[in-house]
């Protein structure tokens, strides 16, 4: 087994930057607490035999979030050979809280006093030798972003590697507390062999997960409980706060006289100056909307649409060139078709969005790395909470305007499981870049005089997120206490170009890989389905396998006003990539002049209300296969995945249904009597479902009920 170093530290302390410096690899770094969600592995640049594991940022070793569980399990169960504890020197007290817990284990710890350049710039001073003495572990001054102290850190690692040791001396917190701690250690000494001190403190803290992980028999368990109770009695407090108190008191003692802060704090720091405007009572929201608009305008409107058009032309030429080349070498017709139309056409249709996404991700990375994203969460939390989301849900939703795939992955930064699930389920309702051509096509064909029809899809998307959020929040699955929203607001930083590019690349990679795998496969399959009939002869589209499948499912869309096989087929091909819907309509209606095409598209729908319904259906239906596969991965359970897909199907169908039926009734002279009855019936079912969901509301959460209960008691 190779020598393993674990990097542990608070979120946003510069761990990932240090990891990149140590290993020379490129991991993505953000100025957003909790960026690393999976542990990442690399090897030291100069000493390849030493493995480095970058753990997710944690505040403590008591786990609430998936990140904390990953980190804690790795440290305690995998027993790395060294822990490098990255300490944000500008936030010493809180960072040392984790350090103390790491020092409770038996694993050698090297503390990296990071961002030391900021401390020096501020004119502050930390006596690192005395800190090292007080903590009982080597302390190295580093600045990961400037590459300072990396050699020193490597030196310390090599020193410990040459002479491994097991910690014997632990921090002595408080005389009374230590008395109980040593007792607890004695109690468990027969059960655990490693990290006794850590287990002892954890057990005094009454950490249930730790308690269950070691096999305590009833007798020992009772003995421990006695100790915990005695401890609580001695301190006249509960065990949680006793331990937090003794640790923080110890930190205060450690830092006494070795940390010279600048006391004259009259001058505002840069962060304070920016925040005076950025989170100002009156200016915050306008600034936020301007930033949002600028991001959208640059990435989607100007630069975005230019590159999309340019690349679109490029792929058409490329397909033509490939076609003539294949002709020359006498390729079979079907293979030529598969390569030119199926693969180049299909994957090309997705790749044209890459520059647009890259720009979007570049801008979002800047916002994230600079620290503004946390402020967005701060400003918007109040709004989002009402829909069962948190301020942090905003970022995935924003990324979702580009592509749902990185958006859903981005939902990992949300600590609370319920919020995260909700965000994953609702994010696909935000229209992604691939859906825009559909809206543009149908909006232009059916509503040529109303330019607002296409943009109205954004409002429909947001509206649906809000409605569904409120609905789901009150269901049995999502009800319950709001998750804590204890969030650090990091200092603003000027992001480094390298950092932004890495970050942007990580996100874009997701999308490009999707184009290369899922969309590639789906394009091939759909091409075959469109071109062949059931006896595998090449035929026109209307006789193809897909057309016959379309004819079978088309009646399902009759109540929506577009019960023809063309629309059904287009919806199906949309699962490879949503922009395929436009291409498919082009194929099944036959290529022709633009005006004719528009008329033919319009003729697919019973009336304009049906066309609008179709747009909404496309908007809200489950996303493309790539996004669906990411949803499955991120939800992590088949039950939740099935729920999410079913929910999206039901919502999209219902919305399209009501838009068509009600729209027809009011604007286009009504529909058949049977439809009216059907509408009423479905409306009743829908209302019943909503009422049923609200009924499940837990009384404890409702202020009224809680109040009532109180009066009963007193």
């Amino acid at each position, binding site marked *: 087994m190779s020598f393993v170093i674990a990097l542990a530290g608070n979120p946003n302390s510069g761990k990932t930057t240090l990891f990149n410096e140590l290993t020379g690899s490129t991991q993505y770094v953000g100025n957003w607490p909790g960026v690393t969600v999976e542990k990442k592995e690399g090897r030291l640049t100069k000493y390849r035999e030493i493995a480095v594991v970058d753990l997710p940022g944690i*505040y*403590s070793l*008591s786990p*609430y979030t998936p990140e904390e569980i990953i980190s804690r399990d790795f440290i305690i169960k995998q027993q790395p050979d060294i822990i490098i504890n990255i300490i944000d020197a*500008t*936030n*010493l*007290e*809180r960072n040392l*809280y984790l350090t103390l817990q790491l020092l409770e284990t038996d694993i050698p710890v090297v503390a990296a006093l990071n961002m030391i350049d900021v401390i020096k710039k501020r004119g502050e001073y930390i006596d690192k030798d005395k800190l090292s003495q007080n903590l009982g572990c080597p302390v190295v001054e580093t600045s990961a972003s400037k590459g300072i102290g990396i050699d020193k850190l490597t030196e310390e690692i090599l020193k410990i590697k040459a002479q491994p040791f097991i910690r014997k001396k632990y921090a002595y917190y408080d005389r009374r507390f230590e008395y109980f701690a040593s007792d607890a250690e004695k109690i468990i000494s027969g059960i655990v062999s490693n990290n006794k001190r850590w287990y002892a403190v954890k057990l005094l803290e009454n950490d249930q997960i730790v308690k269950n992980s070691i096999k305590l028999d009833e007798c020992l368990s009772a003995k421990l409980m006695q100790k915990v109770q005695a401890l609580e009695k001695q301190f006249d407090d509960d065990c*949680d*706060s006793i331990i*937090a*108190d003794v640790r*923080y008191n110890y930190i205060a003692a450690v830092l006494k006289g070795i940390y010279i*802060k600048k006391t004259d704090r009259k001058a505002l720091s840069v*962060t304070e100056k920016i*925040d005076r405007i950025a*989170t*100002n*009572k*009156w200016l*915050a*929201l306008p600034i936020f909307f301007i930033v949002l608009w600028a991001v959208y305008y640059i990435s989607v409107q100007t630069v975005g649409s230019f590159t999309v058009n340019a690349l679109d032309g490029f792929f058409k030429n490329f397909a033509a060139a490939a076609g003539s080349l294949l002709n020359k070498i006498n390729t079979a017709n079907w293979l030529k078709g598969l390569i030119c139309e199926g693969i180049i056409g299909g994957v090309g249709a997705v790749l044209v969005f890459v520059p647009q996404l890259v720009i979007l991700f570049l801008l979002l990375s800047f916002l994230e790395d600079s620290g503004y994203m*946390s402020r967005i*969460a*701060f*400003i918007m*939390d*109040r*709004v989002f*909470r009402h829909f069962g989301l948190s301020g942090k849900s905003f970022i995935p939703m924003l990324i979702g305007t580009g592509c749902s795939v990185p958006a859903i992955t981005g939902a990992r930064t949300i600590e609370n499981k319920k919020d995260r699930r909700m965000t994953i389920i609702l994010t696909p309702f935000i229209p992604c870049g691939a859906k825009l051509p559909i809206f543009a096509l149908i909006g232009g064909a059916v509503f040529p005089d109303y330019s607002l029809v296409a943009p109205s899809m954004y409002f429909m998307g947001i509206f649906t997120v809000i409605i569904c959020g409120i609905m789901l929040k009150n269901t049995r699955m999502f009800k319950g206490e*709001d998750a*804590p*929203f*204890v*969030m*650090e*607001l*990091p200092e603003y930083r000027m992001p480094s170009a390298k950092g932004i590019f890495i970050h942007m690349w990580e996100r874009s990679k997701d999308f490009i890989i999707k184009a290369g795998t899922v969309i590639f496969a789906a394009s091939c399959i759909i091409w075959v389905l469109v071109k062949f009939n059931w006896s595998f002869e090449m035929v026109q589209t209307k006789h193809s396998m897909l057309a016959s499948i379309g004819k079978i499912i088309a009646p399902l869309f009759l109540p929506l006003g577009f019960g023809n096989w063309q629309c059904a087929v287009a919806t199906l091909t949309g699962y490879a990539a949503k922009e395929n819907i436009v291409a498919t309509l082009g194929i099944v209606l036959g290529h022709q002049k633009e005006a004719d095409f528009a008329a033919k598209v319009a003729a697919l729908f019973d009336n304009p209300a049906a066309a609008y319904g179709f747009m909404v259906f496309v908007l809200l239906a489950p996303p493309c296969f790539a996004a669906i596969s990411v949803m499955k991965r991120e939800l992590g359970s088949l039950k939740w995945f099935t729920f999410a897909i079913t929910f999206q199907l039901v919502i999209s169908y219902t919305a399209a249904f009501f838009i068509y039926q009600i729209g027809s009734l009011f604007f286009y002279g009504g529909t058949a009597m049977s439809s009216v009855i059907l509408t009423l019936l479905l409306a009743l079912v829908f209302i019943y479902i909503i009422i049923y969901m609200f009924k499940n509301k837990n009384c404890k959460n409702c202020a009224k009920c809680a109040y009532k209960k109180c009066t009963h008691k*007193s």
Partner: protein
Amino acid sequence: MEVFFSLKKAVKNGITKKESTLKKARAGQSLTVVKILGKGNLRKRLMEMGITKGTKLYVKKIAPLGDPMEITVRGYQLSLRKSEADSIIVT
């Protein structure tokens, strides 16, 4: 009568006249933590983030929509929802 009950409740929760919860604090106030009410993860998380007995807090600002609030604790900025701040007793 109501006053009596609210006073009784306050005494039961260990809040005397001078003390109140962080939720009620205004921007620009400097406060000291007396204790953290409640149970479970939130309480533990608050303490881990450095909000322990005797810690000095400075209420920096309230978010534009009235919630959450930004406080300075142990030299860094923390965002807290008012519902969470309600469990922190301060003087």
